[in-house]
């Protein structure tokens, strides 16, 4: 029932995308927001009702087959991660003044494709979903105004998504039992006979490459920082689905019979991503790229949790695996909520202050108090500080690493010690990047006259960021609530028993744990007492000119002071960069790998585009034709 309704909603999204050519902008964006909200409510209701796995065969599909959809306890929470943050994104898209028809069509189409990817139950539907993600993402990014600045990111997104799709579909096809044609093979048949030997290895490699592209993990993180105004949707919401594919393929479909070392590549990719993200964020000089590249922080940590879960899975430690999966899930929730919130706030700041260059912003909290406060709340959640939302995930990850250390083996233990180091390093650098961003953009003094007269965004957009920030805060003090939707699915993956909603996160039943509600309550209490004590003494603060290290008072034509006497984005991270020494060379090396990868995709795209001069419809036709050809080749081969 729910699944049928969801299929109808996806169809409605596709319909909105097609109708966007004729109907007004507002109908499309608000319609998308409404459909997403409805979808979120549906999924939530089915999760709370503990609905059983539902299957649906659509009459469309490969020749002689059908497209299978399924809604199971693993896919449903990820649908929630897709639909909930998509609502404010769609509302923000409504307020965009410079959108083109292509971006308008891309919004519902992209969401439909993402939902289809999550609901897919066979290789064909997965291919359809992932192909749609690439094309719709390309539409979303194809904006004339940003063409020079973002440097063909639309094409590289399309290329990367197509490449990921090919890898992931190949991985799923490889898993199909030999007796069954891969197109007709649904996930249930794969689960019954998990892959072994070289097939399993190929599945691991292919799914890792594919998911890394989709989730923007190292080494395919190049596109993440260049997505511009579409970043809230593509980075904040979309990358989670890349991790969903990893959950589905490596843990669900491959079963528990896989060797122990499977966790190692995940741990490595996650570790490198988790450190690169925040470090790169201290180098970026524009608002959205800083926040978008920081996404790698949570994504990397979530993948590390997945790696630990695979280790524990192979060693038959369901409790540790459960901890690691819970950690991974909480980090994904943090990412979906905080990153989307931050990227939306970045959009609001750009709208209000007219620039996204860090060296022109500053002091926005004076002129945009709501956006500023919500951005600070998002930074707090994303910076892994207690009692924020991110810290709960980090704490669980640390506990799972403690547990995984007992599996034994010198290599594994060394790997886990290094993983602990990386987790701590990435968290502390992320905290630094968060302070840098908050200090440069929202606090301090404005750096240009334009920023000094920034205007707060309209009420609808303010409501969006406020509701996201409230949700983040609520889940931060009640992480059990954030775990609740995923409990059933994660417990099944970990071969453990699901635990109910609890106020205290615990590594074991009897052990002491982390109680964010107690920490938050104590913090609030002490702050309240201190505030009461200071208010009791009389009126608030008297305002005087800042001492500012003894600089002379600025001339009257500089009402907000001399911008040069204030620390900037480049200077804030300068001590860190000096300590790191040759670090700036290292991203060059990584970039080299990555740009050559992206160039390859680019070349593929250009080849396809050259064949289709007429533009968007032609490109869609070429992509569809390529898919058909690929399917035909596979059909002949099998």
């Amino acid at each position, binding site marked *: 029932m729910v699944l049928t309704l969801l299929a109808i909603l996806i169809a409605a999204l596709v319909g909105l995308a097609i109708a966007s050519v004729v109907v007004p902008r507002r109908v499309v964006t608000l319609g998308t927001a409404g459909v997403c909200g409805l979808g979120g409510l549906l999924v939530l209701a089915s999760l709370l009702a503990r609905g059983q796995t539902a299957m649906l065969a659509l009459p469309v599909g490969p020749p002689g087959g059908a497209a299978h959809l399924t809604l199971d306890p693993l896919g449903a929470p990820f649908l929630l991660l897709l639909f909930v943050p998509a609502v404010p994104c769609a509302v923000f898209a409504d307020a965009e003044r410079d959108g083109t028809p292509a971006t308008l069509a891309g919004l519902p189409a992209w969401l439909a494709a993402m939902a289809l990817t999550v609901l897919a139950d066979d290789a064909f539907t997965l291919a359809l979903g992932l192909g749609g993600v690439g094309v719709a993402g390309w539409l979303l990014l194809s904006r004339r105004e940003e063409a020079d600045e973002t440097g063909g990111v639309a094409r590289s997104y399309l290329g990367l998504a197509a490449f990921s799709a090919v890898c992931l579909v190949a991985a799923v096809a490889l898993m199909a039992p030999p007796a069954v044609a891969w197109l007709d093979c649904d996930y249930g048949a794969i689960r019954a006979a998990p892959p072994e030997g070289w097939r399993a290895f190929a599945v691991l490699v292919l799914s890792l490459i594919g998911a890394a592209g989709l989730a923007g993990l190292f080494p395919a993180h190049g596109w993440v920082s260049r997505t511009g105004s579409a970043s809230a949707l593509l980075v904040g919401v979309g990358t989670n689905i890349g991790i969903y594919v990893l959950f589905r393929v490596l843990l669900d479909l491959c079963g528990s019979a896989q060797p122990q070392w499977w966790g190692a590549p995940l741990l490595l990719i996650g570790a490198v991503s988790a450190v690169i993200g925040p470090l790169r964020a201290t180098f970026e000089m524009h608002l959205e790229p800083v926040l978008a590249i920081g996404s790698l922080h949570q994504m990397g940590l979530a993948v590390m949790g997945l790696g630990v879960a695979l280790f524990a899975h192979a060693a038959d430690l369901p409790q540790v695996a459960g901890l690691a999966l819970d950690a991974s899930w909480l980090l994904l929730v943090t990412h979906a909520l905080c990153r989307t919130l931050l990227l939306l706030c970045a959009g609001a700041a750009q709208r209000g202050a007219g620039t996204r260059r860090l060296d022109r912003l500053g002091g926005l909290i004076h002129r945009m108090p709501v956006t500023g406060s919500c951005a600070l709340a998002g930074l707090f959640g994303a910076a892994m500080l207690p009692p924020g939302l991110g*810290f709960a995930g980090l704490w669980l990850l640390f506990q799972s690493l403690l547990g995984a250390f007992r599996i034994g083996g010198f290599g594994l233990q060394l790997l886990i010690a290094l993983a602990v180091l990386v987790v701590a390093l990435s968290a502390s650098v992320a905290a630094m990047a968060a302070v840098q961003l908050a200090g440069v953009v929202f606090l*301090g003094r404005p750096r240009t006259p334009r920023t000094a007269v920034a205007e707060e965004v309209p009420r609808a957009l303010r409501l969006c960021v406020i509701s996201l920030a409230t949700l983040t805060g609520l889940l931060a003090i009640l992480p059990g609530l954030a775990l609740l939707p995923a409990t059933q699915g994660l417990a099944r993956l970990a071969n453990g028993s699901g635990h109910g909603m609890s106020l205290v996160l615990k590594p074991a039943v009897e052990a002491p744990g982390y109680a964010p509600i107690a920490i938050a309550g104590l913090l609030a209490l002490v702050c309240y007492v201190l505030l009461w004590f200071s208010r009791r003494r009389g009126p608030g603060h008297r305002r005087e000119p800042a001492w500012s290290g003894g600089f002379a008072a600025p001339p009257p034509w500089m009402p907000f002071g001399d911008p040069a006497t204030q620390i900037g984005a480049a200077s804030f991270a300068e001590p860190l960069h000096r300590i790191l020494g040759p670090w700036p060379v290292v991203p060059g090396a990584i970039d080299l790998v990555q740009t050559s990868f992206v160039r390859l995709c680019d070349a593929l795209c250009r080849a396809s585009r050259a064949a289709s001069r007429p533009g968007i419809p032609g490109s869609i036709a070429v992509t569809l034709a390529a898919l058909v050809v690929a399917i035909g080749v596979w059909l002949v081969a099998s």
Partner: protein
Amino acid sequence: MNLVVGFIAQILHIALMAAAAPTLIGLIRWIQARLVGRAGPPILQPWRSLARLLRKQPILAESASEVSAFATLLSLAAVAIVAVMVPSFTLGTTFAPFADLLVIAGLLALARCSIALAGVDAGSALGGLGASRMMTIAGLSEPALVLAIFTLGLLAGSSNLDVIAAMQQESGANWQTGAGLALIATVLVAIADGANGPLVRPELAMQRDAMALEFSGPDLAVIDATEALRLLVWLNLIIAMFLPFGIAPAGAGLGVLLLGFVCWVAKLLVLAAALALLQTVMGRIRPMHVPHMLGVAILLGLLAVVFLFAGAGTV
């Protein structure tokens, strides 16, 4: 019954922390002065300074936002909660189940981040400089601390500070190499994180003091109190993590509690004297040398974990 005893012990502990923090600063400054042959300020001088600052009218820079005042309060609150959770003379207090070491490290980081935000808020050059330096140093000190916590967590099977202190008490003289290395790493982190903050002369440090430059009156008192409390917290943390002998176990009698108190005061005095001596002998650590020190701390932390499983393999 145990609950009531735990609650009373918790109240006593809180009162003790509040009383000890500024006194400890005064004591260390006095010892430092005596060591270089000066008469030194009275030990209760920090109390007087706090009272003087609290009497002043609160002033804020024109360019600062409300974040300034709130961030200083948040930072004091975070350090205060850590002070409440880290045991002093007895284990098993009311908040002991929440005293997770990773949470404690996180709350110290929270205090640091909020004071950094207060530093950049007014938009003055030196505040930003101090914030940048402090966050950089924190970026390196946190991994070392987390590795030390990981080592102890492996030894005790939990990252809860009470469990770890009880474990250390039981293992007693049978000290592990891993724990020793973790101790050195933690001490280095404590020195870098500001155990020496209130003790060096402001014009030299340019870290926390730089961030406090735009504050005066009660806000400055809050920052000073935070610094004093942070020093006490670090000493308490080192005592509870590595030198928990004498701390009364949960549900102990009055005599054991008194013994625990005496032991705690003695350990605190010894550590304070050691810190004063260290400061006097070493002088100031240049900011650009701190990362080297912390690099050593990170290596020691890694070595601590390595020693742990090397030891586990041979036994």
